């Protein structure tokens, strides 16, 4: 597989390595040091770093500006872009802005509903959906044209990604939905956090049976639990999350001061197991406000050192 863009993530995957990505949430303020510090913690242990786009609809520094900070440090950022806050003019415009800084990865999302965030009385946009955003970027990149049909001078060179949630309902369309995103133009997938390994493997088997793993690079989403309380919260309160009872029990049976360590153990064991699953091409390690643990997880999972690609 020959890379189509200068994306480091794409090159790592094209060379046949298991890729490792992570993510950083921008600060609720304008201090650039916050994002730089988070990046410094993880930069040697991952290939690329996602920057979230006003996640959970809480207003933060914009993903694009934070991505530029990472790019200036020599990292390979993944610009997360949600369709909640921008119409097709703003989406295309921000894509060009990112491309002007040679940001070479983008992850297309619809975004959490604004009612979860700090502007619950605001409007949402949803001019496009995430599927159509994938199409739009591929159109801009591959045809070199705007949606309106005009030529783009220096089109964006972006490796295009999407999210997949193997656990959301209705289960019978979880694989068809992935097929649809691939048909729209998705080249890599970062999944929802995986705790129910059996169900994920069942989904992956269906993915492989349809041959979809050959058309898209699937990175398994991993989030270490900090405590039994977090596990219960994720299980009961986060939409589309599947946390089996045994995971909650394993953490709650652990003394409080050791729960964080046990959470890391669970995460490492899951990565070890999923490394062997056909079609898994890497891992997306989302250590939420716990970036300092990413190096340990990556090392203990046997994914360090990271490969060098030019």
């Amino acid at each position: 597989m020959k890379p189509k863009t200068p994306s480091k993530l794409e090159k790592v995957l094209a060379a046949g390595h298991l890729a490792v990505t992570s993510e950083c949430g921008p600060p609720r303020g304008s201090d650039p040091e916050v994002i730089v510090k988070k990046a410094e913690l993880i930069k040697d242990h991952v290939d690329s770093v996602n920057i979230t786009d006003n996640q959970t609809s809480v207003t933060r520094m914009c993903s694009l500006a934070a991505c530029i900070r990472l790019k200036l440090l020599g990292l390979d950022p993944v610009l997360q872009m949600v369709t909640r806050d921008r119409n097709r003019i703003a989406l295309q415009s921000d894509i060009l802005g990112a491309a002007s800084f040679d940001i070479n990865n983008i992850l297309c999302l619809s975004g959490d509903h604004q009612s979860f965030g700090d502007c619950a009385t605001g409007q949402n946009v949803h001019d496009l959906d995430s599927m159509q955003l994938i199409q739009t970027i591929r159109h801009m990149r591959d045809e070199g044209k705007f949606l309106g049909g005009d030529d783009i001078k220096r089109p964006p060179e972006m490796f295009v990604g999407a999210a997949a949630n193997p656990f959301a309902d209705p289960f019978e369309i979880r694989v068809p939905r992935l097929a649809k995103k691939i048909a729209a133009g998705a080249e890599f997938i970062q999944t929802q956090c995986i705790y129910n390994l059996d169900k994920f493997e069942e989904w992956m088997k269906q993915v492989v049976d349809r041959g979809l793993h050959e058309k898209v690079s699937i990175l398994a989403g991993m989030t270490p639990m900090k405590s039994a309380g977090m596990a219960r919260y994720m299980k009961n309160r986060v939409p589309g999350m599947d946390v089996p009872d045994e995971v909650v029990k394993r953490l709650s049976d652990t003394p409080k001061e050791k729960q964080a360590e046990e959470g890391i153990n669970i995460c490492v064991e899951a990565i070890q197991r999923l490394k062997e699953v056909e079609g898994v091409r890497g891992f997306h390690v989302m250590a939420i406000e716990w970036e300092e643990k990413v190096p340990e997880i990556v090392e203990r999972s046997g994914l360090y050192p990271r490969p060098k690609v030019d």
Partner: protein
Amino acid sequence: MIVADKKPIEEIIDEIKEHERILILGCNECVTVCEAGGKKEVGVLASALRMYFLNEGKEVKVDEKTLERQCDHEYLEEIRSMIDQYDAVVSLACGVGVQFTAEKYHSMPVYPGVNTCFMVVTEERGLWTERCQGCGECILARTGAICPVSRCAKRVLNGPCGGSTDGKCEINKEIDCAWQLIVDRLKALDRLDDYEKISPLKDWSTDRAGGPRKVIREDVQQ
């Protein structure tokens, strides 16, 4: 139909308290069906206002009238001969009726007596749920006759989003996930293969985005 909900009476009083001759104007269409602005509700509001002014020691005339519709010239003309008796109208019609009344009687203050909501079905008495946002370009043929524009919180045309859980929407467990309904319906129609057809970018120029809209039908114009 269009559903409207009652406005708090304090809000109505606050708008009209300086007036002395008030007409409460109902409508016999949607707002009657949803029991927010028909003849009965006109009577209830008028009585409450009379009671309020009486307690305040103010002499205010509050009259009642309900028209067949407030969105047609011919019915609104019925009050032309009496409108000069009043110095304010509280319309219990939807926002369309309020505005059309105001357009017709240009120097008369007209206040809304209800909050106009959306286009609905009556699921049961006292429960109305949204079905249409009037986007102007109907896509129901593609979605098993279930509308993601009006029934999905993110109006995703290629859903569901990752927040669909047990058939419910991420924003509220009381709200059905529109895409669960669409998938169920496609299954019932033996059309689940259609799920994988990608819905193209929608032309929103026929929606609110295109500015105030009109339908012109020359074939029915005289």
